[in-house]
């Protein structure tokens, strides 16, 4: 079938939509090459998966049904972990340049400020706790990188309409403006969003719950003299019992997000005059009834749903195609970004013959567990923001009412934001006894912290896309020679980074070294001279030893790749 994507630029008051040309691929001229990976969907998750695969030398084809980026600002908050992942993909600069950094928020009840929260931020941390940037920009920045990357074939205007697979390959039917073709690939990634066609084609059902409350998102252009923070108004006069959120985005765009009265339909809520009145009332409540124009408005409801497994043969689900999460606590895009970070290296290692089939299963295990935890946590915030029953609403109102006179309920207003997951129970981890021997530092499963070093660089700058062994000590530290030899002989690429004790001369045999001034990193890692951390390509620790043995290192690497040595 012919697929005709909308080629008129979407309307926007702040964003100039670029319409990308459809280019007929080889398949339309009779080509039938089998690609390594086909990625369905060019949202944040699909694009970042392609960029991650390219970093590992793996070619992918990305199929995007549209010829322009996201309609509306949608996912507009990136948390620090997402920025770290973008940093490691080498694409963070435009995000840091365009985005608005912030770290806290205030909540109001009956016109009084009743709660104030600041997200943790340590001296020397490179990225702020949160960065606001509209999804149009997220997709633009990532698709610009994808267009320039020779290992990515980004095909605009290409809609996937069928899927089949066998022991050899996946086959996707693709409709385009110039007709249909069949795309063959060793593996496929379903990054086709919340209404995933692939999920439907495979007949997969999500588990969890959908919440009943409906919300309006309205983006307006206005010059409000207010800082970037999260403003939350509970039970305002004009919307009794419900709440209103206000967020600042780049380009003088402000997001207003409020719950609808239960008996109102989405059509009624988006009726222009009613919407206009409510925006006016919100601006008056914020204290700045200034002129504004509407950019985009939509209605959504909160769900906490996930597929029970993300890998189905040669197909892996990522992002909203795999799970639908409440946006309170900014779970949407941030969770997808962590999915792609977890999947990209595993898929690349399987394709390069470095990882066993269990590696893809571990993507599913680790991320399903992470998402179930997010659903659980986000469920708590969601129950407070959108009480699902009279009982929940009554107790929420009781807690709010106390905030005006007492302190004990204030922490119930805490909004839990997305945070990096600890893959604590992962089958890729090794040596629990050695892990338990540490008194501090990132445990196995946890991400390596991006500590600032004395030379102004950060620890993650020294970790490339491969496995790393982070060693502590100096050129004379006992036992390091044997460990280096084992690293050299490893079939799985392993770079050895020495955090060299302050004042000792450069050591030989390491792939990289930095001086650990004042033992800053060693202290944070609970490390002694001779200590080593084995770090996965996605920056999560998978084993650590106060006193490593070459045999244990070899074994741990094999375990971390689900490979039989």
């Amino acid at each position, binding site marked *: 079938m012919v697929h005709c994507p909308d080629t008129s630029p979407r309307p926007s008051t702040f964003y100039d939509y670029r319409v990308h040309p459809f280019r007929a691929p080889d398949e339309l001229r009779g080509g039938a090459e089998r690609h390594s990976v086909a990625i369905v969907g060019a949202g944040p998750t699909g694009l970042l998966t392609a960029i991650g695969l390219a970093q590992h030398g793996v070619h992918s084809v990305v199929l995007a049904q549209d010829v322009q980026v996201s309609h509306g600002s949608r996912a507009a908050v990136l948390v620090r972990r997402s920025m770290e992942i973008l940093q490691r993909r080498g694409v963070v600069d435009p995000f840091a340049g365009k985005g608005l950094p912030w770290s806290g928020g205030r909540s109001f009840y009956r016109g009084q400020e009743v709660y104030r929260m600041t997200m943790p931020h340590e001296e020397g941390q490179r990225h702020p706790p949160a960065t606001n940037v509209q999804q149009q920009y997220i997709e633009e920045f990532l698709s610009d990188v994808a267009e320039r990357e020779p290992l990515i074939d980004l095909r605009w205007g290409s809609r996937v309409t069928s899927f089949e697979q066998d022991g050899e390959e996946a086959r996707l039917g693709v409709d385009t403006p110039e007709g249909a073709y069949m795309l063959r690939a060793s593996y496929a990634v379903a990054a086709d969003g919340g209404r995933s066609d692939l999920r439907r084609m495979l007949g997969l059902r999500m588990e969890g719950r959908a919440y009943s409350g409906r919300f309006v998102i309205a983006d307006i252009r206005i010059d409000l003299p207010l800082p970037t923070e999260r403003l939350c108004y509970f039970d305002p006069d004009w919307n009794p019992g419900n709440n209103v959120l206000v967020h600042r985005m780049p380009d003088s765009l402000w997001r207003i997000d409020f719950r609808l009265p239960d008996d109102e339909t989405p059509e009624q809520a988006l009726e222009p005059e009613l919407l206009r009145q409510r925006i006016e009332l919100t601006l008056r409540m914020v204290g700045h009834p200034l002129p504004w124009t509407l950019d985009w408005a939509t209605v959504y409801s909160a769900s906490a749903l996930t597929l029970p497994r993300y890998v189905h043969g040669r197909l892996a689900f990522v992002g909203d195609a795999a799970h639908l999460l409440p946006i309170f606590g900014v779970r949407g895009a941030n969770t997808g970004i962590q999915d792609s970070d977890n999947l990209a290296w595993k898929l690349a290692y399987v394709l390069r013959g470095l990882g066993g089939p269990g590696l893809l299963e571990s993507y599913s295990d680790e991320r399903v567990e992470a998402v179930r935890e997010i659903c659980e946590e986000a469920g708590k915030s969601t129950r407070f923001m959108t009480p699902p029953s009279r009982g929940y609403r*009554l*107790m929420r*109102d*009781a*807690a709010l*009412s*106390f905030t005006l006179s*007492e302190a*004990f*309920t204030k922490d119930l207003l805490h909004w839990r934001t997305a945070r990096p997951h600890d893959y604590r129970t992962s089958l890729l981890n090794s040596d629990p006894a050695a892990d338990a021997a540490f008194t501090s530092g990132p445990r196995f499963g946890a991400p390596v912290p991006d500590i600032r070093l004395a030379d102004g660089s950060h620890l993650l700058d020294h970790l490339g896309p491969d496995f790393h062994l982070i060693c502590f000590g100096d050129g004379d530290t006992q036992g390091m020679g044997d460990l280096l030899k084992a690293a050299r002989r490893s079939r799985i690429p392993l770079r050895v980074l020495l955090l060299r004790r302050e004042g000792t001369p450069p050591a030989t045999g390491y792939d990289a070294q930095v001086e650990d001034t004042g033992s800053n990193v060693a202290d944070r890692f609970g490390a002694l001279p001779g200590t080593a951390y084995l770090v996965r390509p996605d920056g999560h620790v998978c084993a650590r030893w106060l006193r490593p043995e070459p045999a244990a290192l070899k074994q741990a690497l094999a375990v971390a790749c689900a490979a039989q040595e």
Partner: protein
Amino acid sequence: MIPQIPVTTLEAASDLLAEAIDSAGPEKEALFLAKLALALAAHLDDNAVLGTAVAAALADL
């Protein structure tokens, strides 16, 4: 089982609550009782005991 306390204490507590419910008024009585339960839960700091009280209160409504 909810513990037995001296009847005079229980009677005074009951009167105190009755007057508080009246002063909250029918519109706000549910909110008042919810706030009261939350405050008592904080004083109690023991969700097991709270659970037995909840179960006992739910019986025979």
